[in-house]
């Protein structure tokens, strides 16, 4: 090794990300309105006062970022040109509207947006010209102060976004597929999503992160979701990044009176992945159902932090979070439920179920109930265990090998969550994925 090489020190993740922020925007970057520039400037200021979270931070206690901090990332230099055929296997049959971003950049040739009175969907630039007031009212509002470092970093980088606005009283006939594809190692992308569902409207949205490579890319996603009074949203979040990649995500949801929100979060990829999901019931009588599944093995780490904020009375929340952990992988679940003073008649139930497939797999699960109202019903439960030997024997007694029996039971454990996805073809696709991952063969 030559001396000169040894003296070169690779910039770590933080330095490389901040260096990218200092770059002037490309000449093709659209001019942004004043409020958006201000929003980004604030975020930039916030980022500069923050440091990368460490295990000394309570919210990151089980999630060391050392492997992430050692990496160096850079902004996209040469965009990857994908042909529609390259992503055909990612299409979801039911979704007629598809908005595709490749390494953080909108890819119109891969997207399919049909004019629809019941839906306005497009990139930030396009939507700024038609929905400026809505964007200004909501962009950056839900994640303010939440998700701290990574969310602020995303906002500081805010150039483009997927924006979906469902006007009041509209009902989407088909799910909308928002597809964020990673194709290059070491590239940092900061996908941004804003979903605004008007009063009494109904929609199903699939937020889908997928890597076409095995590499150490970094996806730093933020989704802001606003559900109007009496509106209903089905939100599927699918994280199928590279197993070497890094995925940090914040999703903040605000629920108006008597609205209903159902999310299914599936985490499959990432060397380190993290989801901060916050749901706030801002008015009376809203309902949320949060279902989650992390299926990891090898040396993966998947962390899910959820925060359900019952800020108003008569709210309901239901949560089922499952982890299937193999190898030396590590799953973290922290489920905070806050019942604020005055949020009477809150009805909340949380369940964390964890399956360890090896003796070195690890789960840290932590329910966190904070109740400041007296007339409420809140339950929670957590289990961590291995496969039931009676179930394994039952299947063996029908001729299945022990391996197949264990795989089938593991698959079934995950299928309970997958079956809650309201899109049939996606359910089938994921069942196949889980089957392949648990059996190691199609």
């Amino acid at each position, binding site marked *: 090794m030559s001396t000169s090489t040894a003296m070169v020190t690779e910039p770590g993740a933080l330095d490389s990300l901040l260096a990218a922020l200092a770059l002037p925007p490309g000449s093709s970057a659209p001019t942004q309105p004043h409020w958006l520039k201000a929003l980004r400037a604030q975020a930039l200021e916030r980022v500069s006062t923050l440091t990368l979270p460490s295990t000394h931070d309570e919210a990151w206690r089980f999630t060391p970022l050392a492997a992430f901090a050692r990496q160096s990332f850079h902004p996209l230099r040469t965009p990857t040109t994908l042909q529609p055929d390259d992503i055909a296997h990612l299409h979801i049959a039911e979704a007629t509207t598809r908005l595709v971003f490749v390494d953080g950049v909108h890819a119109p040739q891969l997207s399919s947006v049909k004019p629809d009175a019941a839906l306005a969907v497009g990139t930030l630039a396009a939507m700024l010209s038609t929905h400026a007031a809505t964007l200004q009212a909501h962009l950056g509002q839900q994640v303010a102060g939440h998700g701290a470092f990574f969310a602020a970093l995303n906002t500081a980088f805010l150039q483009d976004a997927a924006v979906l606005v469902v006007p009041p009283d509209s009902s989407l006939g088909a799910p909308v597929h928002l597809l964020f594809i990673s194709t290059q190692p070491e590239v940092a992308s900061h996908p941004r999503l804003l979903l605004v569902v008007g009063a009494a409207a109904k929609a199903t949205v699939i937020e889908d992160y997928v890597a076409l490579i095995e590499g150490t890319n970094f996806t730093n996603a933020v989704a802001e979701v606003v559900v109007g009074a009496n509106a209903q949203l089905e939100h599927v979040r699918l994280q199928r990044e590279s197993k070497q990649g890094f995925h940090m995500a914040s999703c903040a949801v605000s629920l108006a009176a008597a609205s209903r929100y159902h999310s299914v979060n599936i985490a499959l990829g990432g060397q380190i992945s993290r989801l901060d999901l916050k749901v706030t019931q801002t008015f009376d009588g809203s309902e949320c159902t949060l279902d989650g599944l992390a299926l990891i093995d090898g040396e993966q780490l998947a962390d899910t932090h959820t925060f359900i904020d019952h800020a108003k009375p008569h709210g309901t929340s239901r949560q089922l979070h499952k982890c299937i952990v193999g190898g030396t992988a590590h799953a973290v679940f922290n489920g905070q439920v806050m019942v604020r003073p005055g949020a009477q008649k809150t009805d909340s139930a949380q369940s964390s179920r964890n399956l360890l497939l090896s003796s070195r797999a690890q789960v840290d699960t932590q329910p966190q109930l904070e109740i400041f109202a007296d007339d409420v019903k809140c339950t929670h439960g957590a289990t961590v265990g291995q496969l039931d*030997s009676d179930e394994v024997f039952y*299947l*063996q*007694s029908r*001729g299945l*090998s022990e391996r197949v029996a264990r795989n089938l*039971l593991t*698959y079934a454990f995950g*299928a309970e969550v997958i079956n809650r996805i309201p899109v049939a073809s996606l359910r089938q696709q994921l069942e196949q994925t889980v089957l392949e991952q648990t059996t190691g063969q199609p």
Partner: protein
Amino acid sequence: MIIENSPTLLEVRGLCASVNGTDILKGLNFTVKRGEVHAIMGPNGSGKSTFAKVLAGHTAYQVTGGEVLFEGKNLLEMAPELRARAGVFLAFQYPIEIPGVGNSQFLRLAYNTVQAERGKEELDPLEFDDLVREKMKLLEMSPEFLERSVNEGFSGGEKKRNEILQMALLEPSLAILDETDSGLDIDALRVVSQGVNHLANKDNAIVLVTHYQRLLNYIVPDFVHVMSAGRIIRTGGKELALELEERGYDWIEAEAEAAGAVA
């Protein structure tokens, strides 16, 4: 049916087994020939169900002595799935519920695994669907049970029918039915028994493990064995079951004890 010169299917000699260090089976002898129907009766705790599970290969039980030959091969050396593929079938007293695994998917997987082992044709989902629906008619089961998860939310009777459905699909040469009559009402008992009788033939054998004589009105045994304290202490014909129904087990245990004392 008892068939003259029928080949021996199962030969159990001096079988001893324990669970968590407690001896349950203490030198059990038992022989089954093709075509025969055997009933094993006995009081609670006599080791009937343990015997059934040991034959199927449940790992919670340790075999501490004796031997078991199935079609002349050492059954105890075989993993549970190999026993199943070789033709041993246990209908569980408490069939396991498996949420998330479709019954139809499970039945086809088991069927194809056993078919492959026997060098027979595996069926695709459509072909299998035809076959399983035909077999379900025998047990008066609604096809909706194919759509549900394995045994999940099934009533006691439905679970037992599902067990016999598996027997009908896997066509074992030795079927061991562990307390299949427990929890069944009279109609379900009739249907399940008819199913079992339909499946019995000159090449296979059935071992009924039961507490009550009631089942034996429907599935008539060629032999009735009484188990006590881990051994078979009396073997007779079907009339022995009636006698047990009338007089209980005490007298027979007392007689066995007396005989043991004399010997």
